[in-house]
């Protein structure tokens, strides 16, 4: 059982790392702001989400696991709020003054 859970943790964390790496690569390599924002939101929501998912079985309790989920929820909320604001900012920047 514990081996199974550990395998799950490793796989999920690895997947999370992949999204973080992909998001950063996108942030660095994509040519324009909108596609960079697209890359960032993947890293933000999926990368952290998968890492949280992977760590859940390692928390050894319901309360710490709940705290972990709250942290992810806050990050999601922040991402969902800031994403449109950044997009608006980017449009303003691209538009001629």
């Amino acid at each position, binding site marked *: 059982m514990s081996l199974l859970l*550990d395998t799950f*943790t*490793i796989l999920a*964390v*690895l997947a*999370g*790392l992949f999204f*973080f*790496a992909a*998001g*950063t*690569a996108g*942030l*660095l390599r994509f040519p324009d*702001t909108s596609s*960079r*924002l697209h890359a*960032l939101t993947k*890293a*933000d929501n999926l*990368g*952290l989400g998968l*890492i*949280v998912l992977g*760590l859940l079985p*390692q*928390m050894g309790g319901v309360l*710490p696991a709940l*705290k*972990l989920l*709250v*942290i992810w929820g*806050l*990050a999601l*909320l*922040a*991402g969902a*709020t*800031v994403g449109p*604001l*950044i*997009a608006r*900012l*980017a449009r*303003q*920047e691209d*538009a*001629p*003054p």
Partner: protein
Amino acid sequence: MSDLLQIAALVVLVTVAGGLLRILRGPGVADRVMAAQLLGTGGIAVLLLSSVATGAPALLDAALTLALLAAFAAVALVMTAPGRGGRR
């Protein structure tokens, strides 16, 4: 297990450091805000991974604080950003 998670934390740290290049280079304000956001999320991930890896539950509280304040900082950045055409 703990070693693997520590390596995972290091990998996230590397990607976050890569994202910093975007803060340094810009060019627009939006790009810098995005990179700051990635820094916040990455910081949370690093804290979570090291909390489990080193068995330090206090780091979860640090991650919680960071999650609250990173959202706040990003809002502050957007609210006060130089207005139209503010390419700096």
